[in-house]
């Protein structure tokens, strides 16, 4: 059901990633201030944007789940958040590498952008134990949806709070008052954003397909395992 269109989407993602990497290394000019290190920007910032949007999307799916009671939306919400957490790990690591190269430190605790992203990431890291601490599947899905909505609402609020805070360290490259990005850099950035966004969608679809196949397999096992009256189960127990 979820696997439909996965192959063309995967091909489009690989093509978009190849184009964006070509633009990053062969088209975008070197930054006058940071030089070659600034190339991390085209990876780190799109990853952060896609991860944060993914958290919000997870919240939107959770709303649809609570409204309809359809477990399909819960699966969408779970996988969206799961994928965004993985992207979040990449954001933190690439950000730390960039910070070390630019500022000489792996982490700067008085920088609101860094700390706020860490708070959001850690908040979503609690999603897994919170979800799997509940055994009843229906309650688990319902409570996880409430969490996803509350946390999803926190993400844009957190973003706005950080934008309002006056930071002395983290660059604001999209601000137009101080010049902003030149066209070549903006084009490269948008290509990277599109490629990372496509990667997120592809991986979400891939995981949903695998989850759906696994669920159908369990249903099949249960159906085949249903013993005739007076007969013991003949199928080996489920693994994992």
């Amino acid at each position, binding site marked *: 059901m979820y696997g439909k269109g996965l192959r063309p989407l995967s091909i489009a993602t690989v093509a978009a990633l190849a184009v964006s990497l*070509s633009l990053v*290394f*062969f*088209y975008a*000019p*070197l930054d006058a201030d940071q*030089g*070659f*290190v600034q*190339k*991390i920007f085209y*990876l*780190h910032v799109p*990853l952060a944007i896609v991860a944060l949007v993914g958290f919000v999307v997870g919240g939107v799916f959770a709303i649809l789940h609570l409204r309809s009671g359809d477990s399909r939306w819960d699966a969408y919400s779970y996988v969206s958040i799961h994928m965004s957490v*993985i992207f979040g*790990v*990449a954001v933190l*690591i*690439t950000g730390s*590498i*960039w910070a*070390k*190269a630019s500022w000489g430190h792996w982490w700067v605790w008085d920088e609101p952008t860094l700390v706020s992203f860490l708070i959001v990431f850690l908040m979503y890291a609690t999603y897994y134990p919170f979800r799997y601490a509940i055994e009843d599947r229906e309650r688990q899905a319902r409570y996880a949806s409430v969490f996803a909505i509350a946390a999803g609402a926190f993400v844009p609020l957190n973003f706005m709070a950080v934008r309002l805070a006056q930071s002395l360290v983290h660059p604001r490259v999209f601000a137009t008052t101080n010049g902003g990005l030149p066209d070549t850099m903006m084009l490269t950035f948008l290509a990277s954003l599109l490629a990372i966004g496509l*990667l997120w969608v592809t*991986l979400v679809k*891939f*995981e949903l397909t*695998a989850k759906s*196949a*696994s669920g159908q*397999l369990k249903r*099949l*096992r249960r159906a*085949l395992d249903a013993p005739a009256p007076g007969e013991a189960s*003949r*199928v*080996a127990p489920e*693994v*994992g």
Partner: protein
Amino acid sequence: MLALLAAAPALPLDEAGKYVAGAYIVFLALIVIYVAIMAAKLQRIERELRELAGFAETRANGDQAAPARERATSDV
């Protein structure tokens, strides 16, 4: 694309290069690890599906053989 590559500046391999390479390698490694985990999961699903298909076939053959046996014993 060829014109783009021809006009591309040479990549400076100074101090900054290792940080940029590190960031992109970390990203690639995460994707590869994720895909490897998913591939292992899909292999497990495929193996279980094969087991279940074999079991279903065995059961179907058994169900077909049972009425034949009943007919044979009733003929005797």
